[in-house]
């Protein structure tokens, strides 16, 4: 089983080394750098010049950059990368009619699912970290190392979390996988995650948002801003991390269960 997962992982990585996919890789890395650079340019603000002239880098600038980098890298880059890679993990095999070759191998379906999941996660994290490594110094927040390290940890949590969600959605509805994944992202991660109610705790963004506030020591931590607390919660850092790991494990197990119980035939959609 482990050998089969490794085989799928290596095979998928080898297939990913194409011009088109590498172009996506570069685009994912360049996107946050471009946005941060653009904001620096538009704002005409040079933090280095401000430091040399003895002005303190404002807390507002630091927070703005931290939130922006969070939105761009652990959220957008991770979401987009995993959405493109993991959502069609099974549907692509079914459409190509290659699924049957994989399904008649010992633990073939499970190995393909987990192997592709790992390949997607490890494919998305490097461009995110590369983008982060350029965008954070470019932002010049004054505590670049702290921001970088916080975001790196967040990327390492967000990519596997979003990948597990999109993988599950792709297994639940393979024929409409991308539509379902986009709808989920818009509805849950971008709308419901901001609803100040218990339901937002079910979203990945809620956990990541709470972690970025803690790790980057953003102003939402101040107890005076109680109204905001429902958006970031008051659970401990470990609780948020545990919640993400439990979500990942649960979604992968449900995906495997669905895959093993559902019928994917070579004949169902064509000849009987």
């Amino acid at each position, binding site marked *: 089983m482990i050998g*089969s997962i490794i085989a799928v992982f290596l*095979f998928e990585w080898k297939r990913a080394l194409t011009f088109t996919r590498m172009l996506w890789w570069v685009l994912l890395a360049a996107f946050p750098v471009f946005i941060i650079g653009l904001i620096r340019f538009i704002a005409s603000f040079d933090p280095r010049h401000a430091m040399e002239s003895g002005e303190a880098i404002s807390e507002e600038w630091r927070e703005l950059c931290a939130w922006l980098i969070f939105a761009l890298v652990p959220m957008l880059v991770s979401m987009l990368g995993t959405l493109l890679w993991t959502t069609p993990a099974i549907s692509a095999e079914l459409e*190509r*009619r290659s699924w049957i070759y994989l399904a*008649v*191998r*010992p633990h*073939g379906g499970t190995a393909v699912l987990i192997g592709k999941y790992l390949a997607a996660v490890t494919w998305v994290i490097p461009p995110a970290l590369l983008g982060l490594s350029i965008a954070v110094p470019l932002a010049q927040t004054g505590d670049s190392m702290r921001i970088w390290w916080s975001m790196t940890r967040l990327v390492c949590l967000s990519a596997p979390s979003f990948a597990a969600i999109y993988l599950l959605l792709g297994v639940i509805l393979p024929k409409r996988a991308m539509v379902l994944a986009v709808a989920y992202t818009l509805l849950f991660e971008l709308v419901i995650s901001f609803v100040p109610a218990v339901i937002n705790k079910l979203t990945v963004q809620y956990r990541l948002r709470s972690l970025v506030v803690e790790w980057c020591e953003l102003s939402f931590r101040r107890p005076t801003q109680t109204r905001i607390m429902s958006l970031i919660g008051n659970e401990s850092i470990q609780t948020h991390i545990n919640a993400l790991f439990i979500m990942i494990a649960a979604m992968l197990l449900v995906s495997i269960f669905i895959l093993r119980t559902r019928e994917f035939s070579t004949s*169902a959609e064509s000849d*009987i």
Partner: protein
Amino acid sequence: MIELQNVTKLYGKVIGVNDLTLSLEPGAYGLLGPNGSGKSTLLNLIIGQLRPTLGTVNVMGRSPRNNSQLFRKLGFCPGGEGMYSDVSGFDWVRYLQRLQGMTAHEADIAARSSLELVGMSAAMHRPISSYSRGMRQRTKLAQAIAHDPDFLILDEPFNGLDPIGRHELSNVLRDWIGQGKSLLFASHLLHEIESITQSFLLICGGRLLASGTAEDVQTMMLGLPNEIAIRCSNPHLLASYVVREQAAESLKVDGDTLSIATKQPGILYQNLPRWLSDSGVQAWEMRSADESLQALFNSLMKLHRGEL
């Protein structure tokens, strides 16, 4: 080896397999049926990709559904293509052998030897997108046999092969059977199956209509309505013998060909040599007037329903 007990498979309101009961010992079998007869559904039930709506399926004593132990002993060559076009045939077969549980080195050797066996040595490192249909068929067969399974299931393996390719593949499969391994081979062409094995399963409308050797099936066919065309030196004279013995429902003479429709082909075949001898008519060719396999299956279907 394969046990199906009252198996029915429904796709919504469409019947794929209809109350099929079957027991096969290890050996080589041809699954013959027209397009849409339920062959692929039956194969998918046997390899555990489909669950029967009713009834039970057992392969090698166990349910084939999610059965990893069975998959180690099973080789399957599907009817559709479905291979990754952007990888080479070698990489594809090697990848599938890795999924079979082999180490990288074992998979290398298995992929190489199986591709050589099906005549793909020269092209194995080219991308599959550059393969002809026949080359893809060979590659599909290679991935099915590379792990040396005990039981091989092939769905229309000769599709797209030229006559030389068919001959070579037939040899490979005959060698396979010669090693004492089991084979189930689905096709809608009788001669394809006849070139490999003499044991048939005839399926149509999701029902098993007949099974046995070619001789068994021919014996069964003797009692079924038939239309025979005989090209001979004097068709009118030969027709008079047929009418005298009341062995035909209708007769038609067209040039040197006499077409005979009969419900008693057995009597016709039994007496024909004597009629030819007595009349001195020379027969040059005798064939079924209706060569459509569907006609044969329609007759078998009526027999199955008790209409004949």
